[in-house]
């Protein structure tokens, strides 16, 4: 991984810890609010932004409905242009393929383009296991790698770090004397540039992910801002690309849509600075061996589900992270996955399949801000609801007969039985009024028991008043009056 594996923990626990980090809170608040405003300007200036979103959604839905066809077409065209295709069912298969390819070259170091897919499969660790050091060349990715931490943002992996922390990491990793490096961003970038330039010139193997692959010609695309990615895809002799199967697009016309949607949504730029395309290999120009590893790793399962398959539309722009009020407060590490924020809350539980990841669909207030900004119109709140249902049912299945003892499960079943019958509901109203009586202070309750205790740690709750609405309605109808 890019230097660290996310810790699998229930979201509420991880979030609680993250909320204590004052530096993180400030960094996130500043960074997300700045990029949020910039994104809004970059999308509002396009009169056809909504039509573009719809086009993006439609292309993705069409491609996924015919995924087998487009993947075969991609394979055909990559091979026709001298590339090689490898199919990987899961992370283990993908890692084994890349390990074998790298071993053949005999190198001890490989340079990497920023890629979440390779983080997802834990490729850096797999390479380390065969004695190969994978060097991250994206500045932010390099920072988190040096810190031995996982990324905390899809686009800005080191969003949780400040410049003093980055300076300390560089001093240690690059062997620079403290007097020779300040914490000025320009100086830090220059230090990273010197460090990486040496690596670029030595490297014989490059490893990348892919943002898109065009089925009609076999062209693979990486979208980045620094140009370091292009160094990795052009300088080495061998290029290995690991790509999720959902990244294929039918044709070049699709790129017209996505190359507008992606930069405006992610970096709020009108045009992306470095957009690299390559097709197979060309003698005397660029890598002489090109391998494309097509990774499933749970994606076919996602595709099989009617409501959830839209998760695969994602083009990893991170706009949903930047507008998410939950992400803005807890940061990426709380999600325990390489895919944080709202998209992570729906993608991770589907890919990871663990009790911890099953807490992620609840890491949202369903406020809907993510859906509104999504450039390919993923209805994240709807998928969250669907995954919440799945999570409850899986918890029941795991607990078997003990499910009856689950506080929430029991309370929800009881509430449903009460609400389904108007008379029971009214008894419950009266019961609550009686039960609360000893605890009411000035019309409020300051402490609630059990499951509800979390509420009153920071909030009061109004007490049930002397007359409910329906009691008032009945009384008023009885007296024939119309007073308020």
């Amino acid at each position, binding site marked *: 991984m890019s230097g660290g594996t996310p810790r699998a923990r229930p979201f509420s626990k991880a979030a609680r810890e993250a909320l204590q980090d004052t530096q993180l809170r400030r960094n996130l608040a500043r960074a997300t609010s700045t990029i949020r405003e910039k994104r809004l300007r970059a999308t509002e200036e396009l009169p056809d932004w909504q039509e573009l979103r719809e086009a993006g959604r439609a292309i993705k839905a069409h491609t996924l409905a015919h995924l087998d066809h487009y993947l075969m077409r991609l394979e055909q065209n990559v091979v026709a242009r001298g590339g090689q295709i490898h199919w990987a069912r899961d992370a283990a298969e993908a890692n084994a393929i890349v390990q074998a390819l790298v071993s053949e070259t005999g190198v001890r170091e490989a340079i990497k383009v920023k890629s979440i897919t390779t983080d997802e499969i834990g490729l850096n660790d797999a390479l380390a296991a065969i004695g190969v050091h994978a060097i991250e060349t994206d500045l932010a990715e390099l920072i988190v790698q040096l810190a031995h931490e996982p990324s905390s943002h899809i686009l800005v992996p080191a969003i949780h770090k400040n410049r003093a922390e980055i300076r300390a990491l560089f001093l240690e990793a690059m062997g620079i004397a403290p007097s020779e490096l300040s914490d000025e961003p320009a100086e830090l970038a220059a230090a990273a540039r010197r460090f990486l330039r040496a690596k670029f010139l030595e490297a014989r193997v490059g490893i990348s992910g892919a943002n898109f692959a065009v089925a009609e010609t076999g062209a693979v695309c990486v979208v980045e801002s620094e140009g370091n990615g292009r160094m990795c895809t052009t300088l080495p002799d061998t290029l290995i690309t690991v790509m999720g199967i959902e990244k294929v697009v039918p044709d070049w016309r699709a790129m017209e849509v996505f190359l507008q949607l992606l930069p405006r949504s992610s970096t709020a730029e009108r045009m992306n600075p470095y957009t690299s395309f390559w097709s197979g290999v060309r003698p005397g120009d660029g890598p002489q061996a090109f391998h494309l590893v097509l990774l499933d790793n749970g994606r076919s399962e996602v595709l099989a589900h009617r409501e959830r398959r839209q998760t695969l539309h994602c083009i990893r722009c991170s706009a949903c992270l930047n507008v998410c009020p939950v992400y803005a407060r807890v940061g990426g590490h709380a999600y325990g996955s390489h895919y944080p924020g709202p998209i992570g809350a729906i993608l991770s539980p589907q890919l990871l399949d663990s009790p911890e990841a099953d807490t992620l669909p609840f890491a949202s207030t369903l406020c809907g*801000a993510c859906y509104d900004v999504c450039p390919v119109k993923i209805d994240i709140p709807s998928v969250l609801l669907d995954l919440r249902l799945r999570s409850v049912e899986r918890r029941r299945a795991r607990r078997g007969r003990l499910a009856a003892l689950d506080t929430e499960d029991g309370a929800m079943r009881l*509430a449903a039985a009460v*609400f389904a019958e108007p008379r029971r509901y009214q008894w419950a109203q009266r019961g609550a009024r009686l039960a609360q009586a000893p605890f009411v202070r000035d019309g409020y309750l300051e402490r609630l028991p059990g499951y509800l205790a979390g509420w009153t740690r920071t909030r009061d709750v109004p007490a049930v008043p002397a007359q409910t*609405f329906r009691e008032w309605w009945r009384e008023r109808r009885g007296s024939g009056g119309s007073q308020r």
Partner: protein
Amino acid sequence: MRLALFIPCYVDTLFPQAGRATVAVLERLGHELTFPEEQTCCGQMHVNTGYQREAIPLVRNFVRAFGAYDQVVAPSASCVGEVREIYPRLARLSRDPELVADVDALVPRVHELTSFLVDTLGVEDVGAYFPHRVTFHPTCHSQRVLRIGDRPQRLLRRVRGIDLVPLPNAEECCGFGGTFSVKNADTSSAMLSSKVASVLQSGAEVCAAADNSCLMHIGGALHRQRTGVRTLHVAEILASTETHPWRAP
């Protein structure tokens, strides 16, 4: 027009004054209302917590209570959003074609109060008087599920005596999210602290919204912190007149 009142369970139980205010406004405008007593809860809490199957009997109960009416109006954007956006899905989850048909027929007739006033009745000036400084919180479900836009503010701007002041970062969620507020109480509280700061920054004495649920959340912190700022449902402001002005309970 047979007009029915949908008073969500928590309004009925905890905020009856918002229900009474809804009655006052609509009757003042000359409408006769019915409150079908079979109604209980729309099931939003169940759905949003993952207990969608448990919510299906509540959908049936809702259809039983309201199916016979021409229009249904409720002082809650969130619960109306639940009915309009989620009920069709729940009906399909039940695999009961009759329920699907009943829900599809009923759902377009269920309205949130401010949209009902502005769009269905075509009224913006409801003859209200409320001489206080008010800031308005546009709740998430009113904006991004029902998309009622500025309808509440259009009504509020026509209230005589009101001093309507802007709320900084108004569109950001207050952190309630139903059971999110207890399952992720710490994150919820962190979000709420920003909303409370915005309300205080606005200088208002009243924070209003079209949802008592979010107001219960915001108001719970305003009260806990003894800020001296109160929360009111929009209906309560619209119900206040020069002859019967709103009075603190």
